[in-house]
């Protein structure tokens, strides 16, 4: 059974039809990348999957269970987590506090009102693990507002991963990152255990082809093609509407 | 529990009076509402009080007076805090005060406990003379009952038998109207309708046009301050002035409303206790002195302040002491001559027995003057509330 199944969903803003009968299946463990021109509806698709936007018709299933009407915050507990295209962080809190908040959402003590948060050892340990793993230990006490854009981008991804989701939706995780960070992030994404299924939107072709098992191309709100990287790379239509002359498609 | 509370507080209180008797001066706390809509009233009282002091070399009962002015913001909670400061920290000997009835009720329990004499210079709540009467509180102004009662008979006998009554929706409004209604109906009139707009209403057009429609013989209104000004103005604007006679509480015959609204007040019949045009020796002197000092005509509140000083002066002199216990013995039934006429404090209610002058605002030499039509001599409050609770 597929882990995530999107069945014929449509979405419009007033008169503007943004998604039309989009269907998509993601198998457990798969790394699925969505590409498509700007304004194709990729971010909107994410928003529909994660209930951030109500869909007009169709349905979304997670492990066979329909989730289209489940409120977005609850989906995290069903194992779905996401990042945002535009950074969406706690700017006035430190990096460490950001991670605390991200980690605590799946903890049983999140409604606890008497014990200090700092007394929970597991939280501290997990935070430190993340800080170490990403070598940002020295940044942990800095207010997020004072980080550079690329650093914030990384944190965006880390927050979404903190809940150890079954499926992680990443919206342009490397946009705004320098080649160095991009490589690092791309490697990090690849090194994620296969227990985390990935659905990624990305415009950086290097990253796309480095991580993708399967690709789906979205254009004008419709799926025009879904297939292996090879199939996509050699498709003339995709070349024309997306890669642009194919110059860098093979990077 | 009340008894216990008294014993515990009276100790610190005793200390206070002891030190005060030794001193040459007496301290008087003036609790007024100097900010907000009551500011003009407070200013009148303060001016009157200070004028009396100035005329008597700053002394009452032969002792130098130190005045402490506090602003209660017309809020009983604030007033209590100020009260504590005046009584427990400043250790004042007497209190003169508040504008608002809610404040006087809040202070009433405290002065009982602390045994401090409070001269009520304005707050007109009826219950202060009845259920909430206190041996330590004496009113020098007038009560809502007196205010409403004063014109009732005259209006029924001379103006008309049917009336609409309008007053703001707060205790004073209701108390004045009920007193008016009782007096008016006793004299054979009938109040056909009562309306209570909210306090601070901008627009009375609804009520005024309604009155125009109902066509009573007269309209009776009680409004103070800016509400009163707007009411009078709009009564004219909507064409009722001169069409349906307007009778009202004493505020409508007072300088505070007449001066800003001018011609619009012409023709209103009200039962005033005071007007600067009253012709008696006391008043002539008072008006002259007041005008000299403040460069304007005194109003009813100035007289209230003036009389509050006067009553204290007299009581202390007669008691020969500033101990509360001695002073209250004298205060009961004390009489003095006020610019508004002779005054006696009724020992049954601690409320002044005084003349009310039913007058009509008339234009004379381009100024509006309340012209006395009839004097209601020595109007006394009933000893207990005539109204069912």
């Amino acid at each position, binding site marked *: 059974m597929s882990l995530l199944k999107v069945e014929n969903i449509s979405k419009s803003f007033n008169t503007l039809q943004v998604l039309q009968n989009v269907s998509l299946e993601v198998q457990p463990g798969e790394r699925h990348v969505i590409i498509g021109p700007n304004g194709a509806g990729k971010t909107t698709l994410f928003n529909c999957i994660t209930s951030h936007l109500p869909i007009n018709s169709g349905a979304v299933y997670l492990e066979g269970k329909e989730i289209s009407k489940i409120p977005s915050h609850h989906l995290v507990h069903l194992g779905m987590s996401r990042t945002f295209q535009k950074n969406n962080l706690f700017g006035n809190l430190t990096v460490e506090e950001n991670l605390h908040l991200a980690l605590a959402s799946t903890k049983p003590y999140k409604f606890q009102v008497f014990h200090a948060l700092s007394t929970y050892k597991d939280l501290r340990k997990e935070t430190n693990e993340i800080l170490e793993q990403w070598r940002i230990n020295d940044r942990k006490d800095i207010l997020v507002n004072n980080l550079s854009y690329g650093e914030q981008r990384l944190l965006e991804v880390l927050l979404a991963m903190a809940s150890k989701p079954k499926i992680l939706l990443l919206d342009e995780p490397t946009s705004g990152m320098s080649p160095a960070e991009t490589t690092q992030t791309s490697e990090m994404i690849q090194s994620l255990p296969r227990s985390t299924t990935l659905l990624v939107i990305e415009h950086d072709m290097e990253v796309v082809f480095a991580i993708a098992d399967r690709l789906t191309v979205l254009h004008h709100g419709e799926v025009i093609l879904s297939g292996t990287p090879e199939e996509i790379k050699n498709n003339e239509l995709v070349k024309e509407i997306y890669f642009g002359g194919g110059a860098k498609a093979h990077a | 529990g009340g008894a216990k509370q008294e014993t515990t507080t009276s100790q610190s209180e005793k200390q206070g009076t002891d030190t005060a008797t030794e001193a040459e001066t007496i301290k008087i706390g003036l609790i007024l509402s100097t900010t907000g809509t009551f500011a003009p009233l407070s200013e009148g009282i303060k001016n009157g009080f200070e004028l009396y002091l100035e005329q008597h070399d700053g002394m009452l009962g032969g002792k130098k007076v130190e005045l402490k002015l506090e602003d209660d913001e017309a809020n009983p909670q604030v007033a209590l805090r100020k009260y504590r400061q005046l009584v427990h920290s400043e250790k004042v000997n007497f209190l003169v005060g508040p504008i608002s009835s809610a404040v006087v009720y809040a202070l009433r329990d405290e002065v009982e406990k602390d045994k401090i004499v409070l001269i009520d210079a304005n707050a007109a709540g009826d219950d202060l003379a009845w259920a909430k009467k206190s041996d330590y509180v004496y009113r020098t102004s007038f009560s809502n009952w007196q205010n409403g009662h004063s014109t009732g008979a005259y209006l029924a006998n001379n103006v008309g038998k049917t009336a609409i009554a309008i007053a703001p929706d707060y205790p004073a409004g209701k108390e004045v109207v009920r007193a008016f209604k009782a007096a008016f109906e006793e004299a054979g009139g009938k109040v056909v309708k009562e309306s209570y707009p909210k306090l601070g209403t901008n627009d009375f057009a609804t009520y005024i046009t309604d009155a125009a429609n109902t066509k009573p013989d007269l309209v009776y209104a009680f409004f103070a301050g800016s509400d009163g*000004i707007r009411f009078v103005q709009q009564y004219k604007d909507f064409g009722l002035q001169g069409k349906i006679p307007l009778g009202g509480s004493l505020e409508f015959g007072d300088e505070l409303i007449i001066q800003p609204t001018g011609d619009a007040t012409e023709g209103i019949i009200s039962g005033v206790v005071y007007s600067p045009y009253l012709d008696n020796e006391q008043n002539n002197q008072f008006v002259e002195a007041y005008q000299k000092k403040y460069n304007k005509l005194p109003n009813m509140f100035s007289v209230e302040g003036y009389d509050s000083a006067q009553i204290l002066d007299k009581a202390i002199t007669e008691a020969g002491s500033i101990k509360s216990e001695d002073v209250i013995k004298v205060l009961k039934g004390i009489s003095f001559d006020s610019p508004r006429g002779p005054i006696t404090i009724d020992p049954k209610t601690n409320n002044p027995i005084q003349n009310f002058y039913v007058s009509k605002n008339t234009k004379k030499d381009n100024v509006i003057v309340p012209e006395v039509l009839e004097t209601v001599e020595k109007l006394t409050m009933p000893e207990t509330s005539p109204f069912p609770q």
Partner: protein
Amino acid sequence: MSIISVQLLTGLAYGMLYFMIAAGLTIILGVMNVVNLAHGTLFMLGTYIAFTFISQQYSFWVAMLLSVILTAILGIIIERLLIRRVYGKELEQVLLTFGLSFVIADSVKWFWGTEMQTIPVPAMLDFSISVGEMVFPAYRLFVVLIGCLLATLLWYLESKTRIGAVIRAGVDDRSMVGALGINVGLVFTGVFAFGAALAGLSGVLGGPLVGMYIGMDSEILVTSLIVVVVGGLGSWKGSFIGAIIIGLIETLGKVWFPSLSMLIVFLLMMIVLIIRPQGLFGREVA
């Protein structure tokens, strides 16, 4: 004229007055994101200044003009010296403008004393129109007229000039607007002065209706805040409709629910916000 039409007209006149006051507030609040709690005192100041000139035998119109100019100048001073430092800091704005309203209100009391006064209706409008048995003062119709003129002016400024977009952009991202070559500081000063001038203007026009007394500032402030919220922040059109609704409800409420007169506007606001949390015409919060 029947009773009900007189009441409707009265409600409308008050609605227009509320609109004029609220327009200044909503422009400053919704558009510049500044909670100006001193707006009520500027209104008060408008009345007092006009009164002073009128009692010096200036005509109503001259007094009105002078009052508007002076409040606008005060607005400029306030923006330049004070408000400028607290853009974007909402709570500090509250504290600052609250403090300011204390200072202004007390200075007014100091300077003008505590006496209550009224501003006389200008002679040319001092008559009443009577139809049948009912009478309606002409001055109130004049207030309605001015309110409509103001609405037209605002509509013109918003849709026919760039200024509306510039101001809104300035709220979204002030420094970016600067980087596009627009002197945001100047624009904001102008807007604040305009808002203050509107307060002054409505103070003068409201004088003959509400009078002039210590404490008028806070009463007016609360009502106009309610108008702004019911209409929806930042939308003068909302304030226009909101003000008319509140004017009418206040007037008609006296007839229909006399016992609720104390809280009818608060109830109205509460109901509106429960049904539409962003006010009648407010933009949906994203």
